[in-house]
């Protein structure tokens, strides 16, 4: 099959009346055999305006669609080398400063101060301050270790600072450790640092456990708005549109109470699982709050699509309206599906009487009372009987 029998430019020229009669005929003949082209030409004819700008726009949008990440990652990739160079320059600069000094203590202190001063985010009052400067100090320390002369210097520094009090407690501790173990590799030092940090960082509120799960009905559909409560506590949650709930900080032992209108409440023991799956059974008693005339307490209604007003009321509606203007009687059997938003899909006649009656039957369903779609994939069958109008 040849690729592009119809040039876009040909179509454009045709629409602009730029083709001669022969070329026009050729395109029209092609359209006779190509419904795609035929429909498209019809569409352009309907609008009548030149579409070049729109064609360009769509081309651009398609290109965007296919390559959007390039721009974003370009930004990231440009940023990374810059950030890396800055860091390296900083650490090199700091290393350079270190060995030149005969008074390492002063310099180190000065450097620390410099670092602290340069760090605008540091709040001297609080613990985080020492931790902010500590990593940088650690970087300095880590960088200096392999160089022998510097190591010696830091040893001197450290031993002197056993006696010196600096405002950053964490920093002091860290440095002391370095001095005591001069042969450590960078990795070990950093690991120690990390441990220190952790100890310092642990003001220890207990780590919050969470319990989560999903609630569904027996057919597997997620239930939203289900109330979850941990008995004996004030912990509650409500499921979202996916039936998911999350409870933080539950006790180790306990019971979850799961309640939802129209369904049987369940008590489920708390276990450590982070993905409970609970299926709620429909309650045998109907909702008392909503009274819809003709609503039938019927298990079938909850599993199948049905008219919102209920089958009994719908049957009444049919009885009143399934009347042909010419008085024709008969039966029409229809099949259709109801989607989640209540709209009718794929309505068809399984067995009909006459064209007019079939049409009327379909209309009664399509333009009649609202439907509740329960299972979108299940096809509903409906028999409609047309009678003669009752004489008043």
């Amino acid at each position, binding site marked *: *099959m*040849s*690729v*592009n029998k*119809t040039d*876009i430019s040909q*179509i454009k020229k045709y629409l602009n009346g730029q083709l001669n*009669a*022969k070329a*026009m*005929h050729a395109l*029209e*003949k092609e359209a*006779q*055999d*190509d*419904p*795609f*082209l035929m*429909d*498209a*030409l*019809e*569409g*352009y004819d*309907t*609008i009548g*305006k030149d*579409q070049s700008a*729109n*064609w360009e*726009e*769509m*081309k651009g*949008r*398609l*290109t965007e*669609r*296919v*390559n959007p990440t390039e721009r974003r990652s370009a930004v990231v990739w440009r940023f990374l080398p810059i950030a890396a160079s800055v860091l390296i320059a900083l650490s090199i600069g700091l290393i350079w400063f270190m060995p030149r000094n005969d008074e390492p203590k002063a310099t180190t202190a000065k450097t620390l101060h410099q670092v602290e001063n340069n760090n605008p985010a540091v709040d001297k009052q609080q613990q985080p301050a020492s931790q902010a400067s500590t990593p940088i100090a650690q970087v300095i320390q880590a960088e200096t270790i392999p160089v022998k002369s510097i190591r010696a210097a830091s040893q001197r520094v450290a031993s002197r600072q056993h006696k010196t009090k600096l405002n950053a407690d964490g920093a002091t501790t860290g440095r002391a450790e370095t001095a005591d173990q001069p042969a450590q590799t960078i990795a070990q030092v950093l690991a120690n640092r990390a441990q220190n940090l952790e100890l310092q960082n642990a003001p220890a509120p207990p780590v919050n456990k969470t319990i989560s799960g999903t609630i569904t009905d027996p057919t597997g559909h997620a239930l939203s708005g289900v109330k979850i409560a941990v008995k004996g506590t004030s912990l509650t949650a409500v499921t979202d549109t996916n039936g998911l709930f999350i409870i933080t900080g539950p006790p180790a032992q306990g019971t979850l109470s799961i309640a939802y209108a129209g369904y049987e409440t369940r008590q489920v023991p708390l276990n450590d699982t982070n993905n409970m799956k609970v299926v709620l059974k429909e309650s045998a008693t109907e909702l008392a709050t909503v009274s819809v005339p003709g609503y039938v307490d019927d298990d079938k209604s909850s599993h199948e699509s049905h008219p919102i007003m209920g089958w009994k009321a719908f049957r009444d509606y049919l009885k009143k309206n399934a009347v042909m203007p010419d008085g024709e009687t008969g039966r029409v059997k229809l099949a259709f599906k109801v989607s989640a938003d209540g*709209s*009718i*899909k*794929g*309505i068809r006649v399984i067995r009909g009487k006459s064209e007019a009656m079939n049409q009327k039957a*379909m209309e009664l369903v*399509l*333009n009649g009372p609202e439907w509740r779609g329960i299972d979108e994939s299940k096809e509903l069958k409906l028999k409609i009987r047309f009678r003669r109008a009752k004489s008043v």
Partner: protein
Amino acid sequence: MKFLKSSRKPVEADDDTLLRNYRETGDLAMLARLYERYMTLVYGVCLKYLKDEELSKDAVMQIFEELLAKVNRYDIKQFKSWLYTLSRNYCLMQLRSGKKWEQESLDNVMELAVDLHPEYEALQDDLAALERCKEKLPPAQKLTVNMFYLDEKCYKEIAEHTGYSLNEVKSYIQNGKRNLKICLEKNRER
């Protein structure tokens, strides 16, 4: 004519090759290139059903998404006709609001592809029967069909010559073709 065409344009992969390449590499750019070839047609179809430029532009992008979602799931024999069905189905779905449209199943598009086979070529095979059938056509249809197929006149010319409106010309040709087809089929059955 075909030779001239291919020497002018750079060698381009055909639909099947592009499609296969996409399936193997997953390179979106391939699929986009393929789609780009027919974007004008897809847009035109959307214009026909949705009758709105902005809506149609959005629809064209959405249909690309549909394409992306479905291209690996279906055995596509003719990309162009499959895309046509996809586009039409999407537009019809957009128009839903209460009315029921028969959506052509994407699996059955092969039938559609067969219909793309030029009808007139099939008609030409029965020249004698054709002549007889043409005589039976209502005059307006006979006239327009002759002018279009035999004299190779475009719609505009036919309209000017006959005084019919453009739409009437198109309609007469459509109906004429259909009647000829029916007549010939009846003829074949005999």
